[in-house]
């Protein structure tokens, strides 16, 4: 495979993940020895930064919490600055298997994709969400396919690999708060190619999901609003957003 010779960066956004961060980093390093890793510590007050630094990988410490969008964009800026050809985001809680990345990268290369998403729902990957979560996910995926005309089943997956073109775009323009869904529309607006690849996700090893019931209502409303507004933006507005 060609991709092992490319400059690949794994971006791990981490907020209060002291219990799992070192294990996640080490697992990625042993599974994928050909990649570089950067941990974006999003203003954690626990030992996330120290534990990550102890493994020897690059750690970018944000002085305060920017939220997942701001933290991820920091990673993409870092990737752009340091000339990486591929950037991959992997969650710090251990739910993504680094072993699946070779599958993602292979699809990216063979089918010339700009972004590849590790998805829980394509074919059977053994994932059963709760009823309300399933309803939300169905609604978002319907919204995305209405706007883009393409079917994306797992719109909220945080397991994503992107090429240099998208790294540059994200360094300039990345949605705040809950970026996953908006990113799909953004890429569609820029006529970039996205594909899902089935992966198996682990249940959270430590910590809790950042999305509580009340937050998920806000999440849905905010995401739908952002998507609808994004649709009304003209191409020049999309381009000048950075």
């Amino acid at each position, binding site marked *: 495979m060609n991709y092992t010779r490319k400059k690949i960066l794994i971006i791990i956004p981490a907020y209060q993940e002291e219990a799992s961060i070192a294990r996640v980093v080490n697992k990625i390093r042993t599974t994928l020895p050909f990649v570089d890793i950067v941990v*974006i510590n999003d203003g954690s007050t626990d030992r996330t930064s120290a534990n990550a630094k102890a493994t020897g990988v*690059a*750690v*970018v*410490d*944000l*002085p*305060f919490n*920017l939220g997942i969008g*701001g933290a991820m*964009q*920091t990673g993409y*800026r*870092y990737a752009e*600055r340091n000339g990486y050809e591929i950037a991959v985001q992997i969650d710090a809680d251990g739910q993504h298997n680094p072993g699946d990345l070779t599958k993602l990268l292979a699809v990216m290369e063979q089918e010339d994709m700009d972004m590849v998403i590790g998805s829980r729902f394509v074919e059977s990957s053994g994932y059963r969400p709760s009823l309300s979560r399933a309803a939300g996910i169905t609604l978002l995926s319907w919204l995305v396919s209405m706007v883009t005309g393409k079917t994306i089943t797992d719109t909220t997956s945080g397991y994503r690999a992107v090429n240099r073109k998208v790294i540059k775009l994200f360094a300039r323009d990345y949605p*705040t708060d809950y970026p996953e869904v908006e990113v799909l529309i953004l890429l569609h607006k820029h006529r970039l190619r996205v594909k899902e690849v089935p992966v198996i996700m682990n249940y959270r090893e430590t910590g809790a999901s950042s999305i509580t019931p009340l937050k998920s209502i806000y999440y849905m409303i905010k995401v739908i609003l952002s998507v609808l507004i994004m649709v009304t933006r003209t191409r020049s507005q999309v381009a000048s957003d950075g």
Partner: protein
Amino acid sequence: MVNVYFLAILFSLIFLLAVVDLVRRRRLKEQYSLLWLLVGFLMLFLSLSRVNLEMLAAWLDIKYAPAMLFLFGLIFSFILILHLTVVISKMSERVVILTQEFAILREQLQEKQKVEKE
């Protein structure tokens, strides 16, 4: 002779002086002060001449002329608050960019220092 018109004149004058003083002491940027001065003079103009105000009120079918002062005040407040949230949005975007750039630079600096030590 203390009535709403007198109070409105007094308020407009104090308001205008306060705006000028804030600019003098560099507590308010000139660009924002222009907006406030404009409003101050408008308020002053409306309160000075009862006839003007009542004519305008009659034209807009407002029964109680001084209510127009409040109407203008309220409309202006909404516009200004909207403007302020636009300014805040721009500022928070800049803060995010600065924070990201700062964190990346600090990481580079620490890497460099680590290499130099070895």
